[in-house]
């Protein structure tokens, strides 16, 4: 038998997936009820919180198992490749999730708004539905007369772009530190990356407040506001998750986990961070600048 093939570790029975399934059930039911009861009030959000709590507990225990197994040397190089490929495909699925919203943005901007303004063979669409409507982007006046203001790119968005780009660089330095077993710079650069991530999120909140209070740019302000908030909102949620991942990695680094040649969890978190960075660049160009 070919000795180059190490034994592939197949874990024994595990309770965590079924706990996670219950968590997902509570989250789905809780989220559904929360949304449905938004106006009437009701206890749905408690179900949601319970689900999230169970999910976090489950993830913590599941990853604990994985880390223990890894420490016992149960994972072969082949296993490592499975993790890497799995994470890559997960990130690909995230890319496709954002594609749906970018698709909506491009469609609204290139097709539906011009058509409502009478472009192509749609002169009568404009004439019959909203004859006073003019197609412009950003869509600050909707066909039914709602008005808003566009978010400029020069102020906070530009600063945020620089912050996120810098954070990718600091994370890269942290990775270099990891590979060269320089734990000091590793910790510093990790902490720096997390701080930058938190700064980004804080400034996003400031920007949202500015949008709501000064610009009248709200979630329901027509398709410009819709695409703006859903794209930046989902991106913000991903940054939040990425920051939490990096924070967990920093805690593990402080506890002495990882070695120069064995640090897949760190690398996965780093890939994820670079991914949200690239999404932001697309956002900055297509949502803010253009």
């Amino acid at each position, binding site marked *: *038998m*070919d000795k180059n*093939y190490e*034994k*592939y570790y*197949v*874990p024994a*029975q*595990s*309770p*965590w997936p*079924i706990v*996670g*399934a*219950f968590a*997902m*059930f509570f*989250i*789905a*039911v809780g989220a*559904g009820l929360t*949304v*449905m009861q938004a106006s009437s009030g009701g206890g749905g959000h408690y179900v949601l919180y319970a689900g999230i709590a169970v999910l976090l507990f489950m993830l913590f225990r*599941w990853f604990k198992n994985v880390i223990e197994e890894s420490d016992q040397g149960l994972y072969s190089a*082949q296993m490592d490749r*499975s*993790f890497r*490929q*799995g994470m890559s*495909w*997960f990130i690909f*699925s*995230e890319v*496709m*999730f954002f*594609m*749906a919203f970018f*698709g*909506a943005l491009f*469609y*609204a901007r290139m*097709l*539906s*708004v011009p*058509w*409502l303004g009478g472009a192509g*063979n749609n002169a009568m669409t404009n004439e019959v539905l909203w004859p006073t409507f003019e197609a412009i982007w950003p*869509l600050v006046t*909707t*066909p*039914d007369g*709602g008005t808003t203001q566009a978010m400029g790119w020069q102020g906070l968005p530009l600063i945020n772009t620089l912050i996120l780009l810098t954070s990718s660089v600091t994370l890269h330095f942290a990775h270099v530190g990891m590979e060269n077993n320089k734990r000091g710079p590793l910790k510093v650069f990790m902490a720096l990356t997390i701080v930058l991530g938190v700064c980004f999120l804080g400034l996003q909140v400031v920007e949202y407040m500015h949008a709501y209070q000064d610009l009248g740019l709200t*979630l*329901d302000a*027509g*398709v*410009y*506001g*819709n*695409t703006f908030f859903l794209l930046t909102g989902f991106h913000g949620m991903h940054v939040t998750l990425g920051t939490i991942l990096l924070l967990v990695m920093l805690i593990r680094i402080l506890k002495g986990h990882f070695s120069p040649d064995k640090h897949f969890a760190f690398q996965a978190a780093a890939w994820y961070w670079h991914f949200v960075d690239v999404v932001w660049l697309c956002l900055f160009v297509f949502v803010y600048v253009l």
Partner: protein
Amino acid sequence: MSSVTEQQHDQAAHHDGHHHPAKGFKRWLYTTNHKDIGSLYLIFSLTMFLIGGAMAMVIRAELFQPGLQLVEPHFFNQMTTVHGLIMVFGAVMPAFTGLANWMVPLMIGAPDMALPRMNNWSFWILPFAFIILLASLFMPGGGPAFGWTFYAPLSTTYSNDNTALFVFAVHIMGISSIMGAINVIVTIVNLRAPGMTWMKLPLFVWTWLITAFLLIAVMPVLAGAVTMVLTDKYFATSFFDAAGGGDPVMFQHIFWFFGHPEVYIMILPAFGIISTIVPTFSRKKLFGYASMVYATSSIALLSFIVWAHHMFTTGMPVAGELFFMYATMLISVPTGVKVFNWVATMWRGSISFEVPMLFSIAFIVLFTLGGFSGLMLAITPADFQYHDTYFVVAHFHYVLVTGAIFSIMAGAYYWLPKWTGNMFNITLAKWHFWLSLVSVNVLFFPMHFVGLAGMPRRIPDYALQFADFNAIISIGGFAFGLSQLLFVVVVFKCARGGDKVPAKVWDGAEGLEWEVASPAPYHTFETPPEIK
């Protein structure tokens, strides 16, 4: 061959404790074993098939006569909607995932799926998603009633308040599919036994590899679509509302960008199963293996650029109509290659008509028929007449029932003896086949006629002129529905006992799965086999 089998037995014996199946229900809840999880998927799929089938019976009972007699129109709409959702996401997709779980590791000589715990998770969230979906039927206001395609504004402006539950149920189904697909893809890429090169891969594995790619690419887009429906309905966004600058047709574009690859997700594994079974019972190698691989890949790639053929009547620019018409017709080329190869495999073969082969031959004939009606629908000007009629219903039921479902039946009969170690009751199985074959055509063939004559789909009532055909269709429907109970009987009897089968159940079968004992030991290929 037998040495491999014994070796596997020895290895299984060495690792007791956690390497034997656990006792009681914990075995199923906590399992990390690809065979257990495969069985769970298959049992779940069969359950959903029966529930979704019961809804189809309600639909056919109401349509037995013109006029409204049994159910309210709103409930009728819920039945068509949930029937579609259940059959797509609850029956066909989990059945294929179950077959992949069982067979892919066996076929490529892997010890299990690459990420066994995630495998368990991706299964167990699925029943919960369907509990949510089915529970909404019993809530005030009822379940989703906007068709499985949930077009805006039906799902936004005009839907009932329980739509949020539908949205989050679909989110979970999507997460389950994505995790399942990641597992399949990583298993195939990373866990092939040494010597199992790409062009030696069994075709079922190839087709699933491509299917998994499609799943990861488009399920997130579905998640995006339901999310926008959610915000449009509950948070006053206007993605699909022209008053705010959006467009209801945009929904259709996003949905069908998911939806068209989705129909290939439901047929490519079927191609893989048929390509496995036909050579076995023709006692010949598959004709044109490489062309099968290329054809599957081209179908998958083309599936991304044909979505708007579902929307010819939405008033697209003519250039768009033409592009999507020709791109769609292009798909018939690789599909034709496949049908040709199956027929060429049988050509001058030493054919025997075991039950899996019967289903496979029925698949080849009837799926091709469904493909032809698809070609008719692809012709833009003709589609203006067929759009939203029973002709479309006939088309997609031919490709999904006599296509996907028949292939699943074929696969189930082909591998049941390997899973259980027992031969199924052949007489009963043949009854199941012939009754299904006759009734399914009584059920779906006349739909072509009423569709061409203009009977609209998703309507609980119809013009008198369609009465006779609808009565015939309903009788076919009830017969087909009842025939499937025979399948349940055959499966249960087979699981409980029957004539013992050898490792290589079928004479002409080839592949690693026939080199392990029947029933397949709980753990196989803990050390990868050598492929020559």
